[in-house]
């Protein structure tokens, strides 16, 4: 589990804003603004952040559905950013995506057999129709659907079943890395648990690596081995799941975690409520992009953008206050640091290497 299946370096995607009759570029939306992360084989990397922080763009970039403005995406040691033709086609077999919207992600005019079988016929994985159908049946069984569903159309299924079809489609090519773009956020909570557990089972069975994009922290905690928190197109903190949830270093992560409801009404906790709204990615603040909303900001945060700093043990955070940078600065400018989250006893320390988080879905 030490090699890197996928590594992203300095990934950027800027969308131009055009204006005027001539369509001149008048600005840029910096949807993804310099990302670095990696995924090990068979591992789940949770990618969390609020709406509009660029999570979905990252998913599209990894799949080469969008071309990055800058940066490298290295899959198995090969930069895939400029792959074309046959090489790109080959990559498609190993990298797949599961979409958020189970209603929009299936072509309403094709049957299940055609939707899943299309993957196989594009890549010539089945010798003939019979073999293709048999393979589709296998896939349906793997995701908990039945053989007679083959000839049904998407509108005949429920949301959860449709998502299973989407999962079967992603698995058809036997990929090694599956990017899941909010795969359960469009589903009922009871169905979410089923789909999440299905994803975990499939991961174990087919040794899949996931990039699990979500805004739902409890699901991310349950699914992921490591978590990266995004804010306005940048990763502000990344760490193994237990570390991130028990000892969040970045004030944004702390605020996010404090918003997660706890199932125990006896536990009292101080909520960190962020002031202000998410700034527009077309007009980013100077210095640290989080400073206008930060509750512990320093004068320096207005001027200087912090870089990811290693806090040890694979825990990275981009904040001037954490780590070695802390000593250089004076007292926080705005209120005192909230200790509530940090004060919680870490109950997963000493667990096995790369443990998943805990959650309410199983057990």
């Amino acid at each position: 589990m030490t090699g890197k299946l996928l590594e992203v370096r300095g990934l950027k995607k800027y969308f131009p804003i055009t204006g005027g009759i001539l369509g001149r570029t008048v600005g840029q939306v910096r949807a993804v603004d310099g990302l670095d992360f990696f995924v090990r084989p068979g591992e789940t990397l949770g990618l969390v952040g609020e709406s509009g922080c660029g999570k979905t763009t990252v998913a599209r970039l990894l799949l080469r559905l969008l071309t990055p403005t800058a940066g490298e995406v290295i899959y198995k040691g090969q930069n895939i950013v400029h792959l074309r033709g046959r090489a790109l086609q080959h990559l498609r077999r190993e990298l797949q995506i599961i979409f958020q919207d189970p209603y929009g992600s299936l072509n309403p005019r094709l049957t299940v057999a055609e939707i899943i079988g299309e993957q196989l016929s594009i890549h010539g994985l089945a010798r003939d129709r019979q073999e293709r159908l048999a393979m589709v049946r296998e896939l349906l069984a793997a995701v908990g659907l039945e053989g007679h569903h083959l000839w049904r159309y998407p509108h005949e299924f429920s949301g959860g079943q449709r998502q299973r079809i989407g999962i079967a489609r992603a698995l058809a090519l036997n990929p090694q890395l599956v990017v899941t773009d909010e795969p359960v956020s469009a589903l009922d909570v009871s169905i979410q648990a089923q789909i999440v557990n299905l994803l975990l089972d499939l991961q174990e069975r087919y040794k899949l690596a996931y990039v699990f994009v979500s805004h739902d922290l409890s699901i991310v905690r349950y699914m992921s081995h490591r978590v990266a928190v995004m804010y306005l197109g940048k990763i502000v903190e990344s760490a193994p799941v237990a570390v991130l949830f028990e000892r969040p270093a970045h004030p944004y992560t702390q605020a996010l975690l404090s918003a997660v409801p706890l199932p125990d009404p006896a536990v009292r906790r101080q909520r960190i409520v962020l002031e202000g709204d998410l700034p527009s990615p077309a007009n980013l603040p100077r210095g640290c992009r989080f400073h206008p909303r930060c509750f512990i900001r320093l004068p320096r945060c207005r001027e200087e953008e912090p870089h990811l700093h290693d806090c040890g043990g694979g825990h990275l955070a981009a904040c001037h206050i954490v780590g070695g940078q802390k000593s250089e600065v004076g007292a926080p400018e705005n209120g005192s640091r909230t200790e509530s989250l940090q004060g919680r006893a870490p109950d997963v320390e000493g667990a096995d290497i790369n443990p998943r988080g805990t959650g309410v879905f199983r057990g």
Partner: protein
Amino acid sequence: MKTQPVPDYCPSAAAAVAEHRKRVSDFWWQLRRNRLALCGAAVLAFFTVVALLAPWLAPYSPTAQNLPASLQPPGPAHLLGTDEFGRDILSRIIFGARFSLPVGFFSVAIALAGGGLLGMLAGYYGGRLDNLIMRVMDVMLALPTILLAIVIVTALGPGLTNVMVAVGISLIPNFARVAKAAVLGVRELEYVEAARASGAGTLRVIFRHILPNSLAPIIVQGTLSVAGAILSAAALSFIGLGAQPPTPEWGSMLSSGRAFLRDAPHVTTFPGLAILLTVLALNLFGDGLRDALDPRLRQFNR
């Protein structure tokens, strides 16, 4: 591929193939179930047969003049009466189907091919190509359809074939707009992205995923336009650019009978009815076709 036994609850391969065939026949089944669409199809088939068998069905020659018997009302000798030259109107309508129907269908076919393709390119690729195509379409739309057709047919010279081409070209912008809007709506959907993510080529994405899902408005536009095309061709015939005088084209019959509207309304009524019936039949059939092509609108039939 994963190795895993095929579950035993699956139907056998033969049964699966049978079910697939049944599904294909569902399309015809659905179309047949829709009574109105069936009526439309029947009327269209009727006119087609009439056009094909015209020389055997028509009681008189469509061009033989009989001046003493001009402007006779419908009666036993002439079932639908005669026009100002004493020509039998029924025979002229029967032969007219040979001109009016092809004019409608071929001009729409031209518009559909040209406009559909341009609209699809504009919608799919967007950006500069879209701008270029749609601005040219805007220029064409700025002129009234009939005026544009007149300009084109004047350049090509009068005649029924040129009228088809002219009407077809003048309808291109309408089809381009409809096709572009439809493609634009579908292009951004996730299943198109999913197809791309699985390595589907541009042609596969367009013809398997985008086109079938943007077809409904184009079909409706097509069936409505056949009617409009027949009328446009009639108008061109009226001003002397289309069917030349003895040719029994419905539109030109309509316009030449206009002078006698007060005294002999049957001269215009019957060709008008023929046009009306064709147009109505086309619209009903078009609606049925659209519904039968869309699995979401299919009624439960097992």
